[in-house]
């Protein structure tokens, strides 16, 4: 799994088991309400969310999210998050 969307997120794959992969997402959000959308998308793509931490630091929200799911679904989640974070950045200007 490879992320290419820039600085607003990083992705770390942990392990593979039964066609599922667990990943840890590190996201930087301007609007903390995006967490709601990320949870919804994770569910919609058939993945499971197993941890969610959110901290406010320097007026930005730093989210750490563990997600488990099939690689294909995680790839789609990646694509959707790229869009969300781009718009989040633009809306905050």
């Amino acid at each position, binding site marked *: 799994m490879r992320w290419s*969307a820039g600085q607003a997120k990083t992705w770390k794959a942990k392990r593979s088991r039964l066609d599922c992969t667990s990943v840890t997402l590190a996201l930087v959000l301007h609007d903390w309400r995006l967490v709601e959308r990320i949870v919804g998308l994770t569910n919609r793509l058939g993945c499971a969310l197993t941890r969610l931490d959110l901290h406010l630091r320097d007026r930005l929200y730093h989210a750490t999210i563990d997600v488990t799911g099939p690689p294909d679904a995680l790839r*789609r989640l990646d*694509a959707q998050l790229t*869009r969300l974070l781009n*718009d989040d950045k*633009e809306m905050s*200007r």
Partner: protein
Amino acid sequence: MPDPADSTGSQLILDILSDEGVDVVFGYPGGAIMPLYDALHRHSIRHILTRHEQAASFAAGGYARATGRVGVCMATSGPGATNLITGLLDAQMDSVPVVAITGQVRTPLMGTDAFQEADVTSIAAAATKRSVCVRDVTDLERALRAAFRVARGPRPGPVLVDVPQDVLKAACPRFNAFAARPIAVANERPGDAALSEAVELIRRAERPVAIVGGGARSANATQMFRELCALLELPHTATINGLGCAAPHDPRFLGMLGMHGWKAANLAVNSADLVLALGMRFDDRVTGRPDKFARNAVVVHADIDASEFNKVIPVRVALRGDLRHTLAHLLQRLAELEHRPRFSGWAAQAKALGGPLPADRTPQGELSATEVLDAFFAVAPDDAIVTTDVGQHQMWAAQRARASHPRNFLTSAGLGAMGFGVPAAMGAQLAFPERTVVAIVGDGGFQMSLPELATIKRYALPVKILLVDNRRLGMVRQWQELFYERRYSATDLSDNPDFVTIARGYDLRAERIDDAGEIRDALERFLVAREPRLLHCACFPAENVWPLIPPGATVADAMECRPGENLESEAIPA
């Protein structure tokens, strides 16, 4: 120096809309948004009162699709706001720039299940690019500016701004028209390495096919796409949203691609060794089974949205950037090639892969919908804007449309929202009062938008409605016939009302035809008049859309007529 408190949130919203170039908004008032409507009463922005909020969001989408500018709709809190959602999701699916402004209950009441309260920002989150609630009037300008910026792009889409009533009423400084404005510019271009690889793949290809989608319309890249096709003599096809990007009479244009696309287009893509996918997103109605789609081809995919790459179809080369810039760079590099490839031989072969559109032969004396639409597109003005609703008539129209401009054929493609055709035509007509605007609708979708006849009448919009009435929910009926062993569940509309009487009830001119011999004269009367008109075509109910690639199947499974038999003769109630 302006008085620090000589304006209100409502006035500020309208002044910002004006400054963003908005000249018309579509909406419906209600309790929470009354302060904004009160300010609107004194403002130069034109408000179009639709008869349902859903029509307001569809009309804003129609305006935006026809012009490329941001369409604006507004509604009150609760049901008003939720009624906008379908139109917003339609804009989201087809990347159409729309800004929706909704009233909200006063901030102290939010979260108390107040009258007409809905958490619309959450509801709209999955139907828009962004939805925000502005709780402080001092944040209103920043939020609205951002909404327009995000709606415009780089990939356009809808944004919802929810404003509580107390924020609409709050005093604030007068809008300063000379304030610095952030401007969104989408001029990203792909990297040199990717461009070089794409050119090399084109140079080595033997059977390339280009597919153009709605992204070319958004990027104003139509001319460059046509230049690319001409330079390489490249066979090309279009998604339904890309219709009009290709020159309709270019001999290398293979017609629409996909489930109901032209045979030559689907077979050519199936045979291709290179697919150039330009501003399209490999919708399932285009690909059928993705693992079988163009399986002999490598794919070069150009799009402004990186999230589209590898979403459905594996891509060899991804060209991320504004499509106009991408095509400009491709054209330049291809033009400089010492041995530039030309694909005229393959283009002729591709064109020969398919024949004319297959069509059912309706029984003697019955009016054929495809015959009506063939006749319509033969006489419609070149610059006419055609909108459709959703269903069989939409596919028949898309197959036959000869749009010379990508903003001349407007349809709810991704969402497939019935009720779209008439309000979208209203939006397009308001943008272009002098042009011929025709809504082609079926009897199902038309009945979802009937109240808008009042809007058409009130504003004297010369929208023409071509009603293809087969007294069925035709597309669902067709699938029931083909895939559900003819169990026609809930698709019979044989007790439709008298549409001509209804139109006349709204004081609109209307005419009904039942016979093929009446088509030509009726269409002439219909198109010549500079006034709204309804032409009600009472068509045979069992005519199907062909070809059809069944869902999840491949071009090899395409159906061109009913399996093993002729058109059934259904009993049609008098």
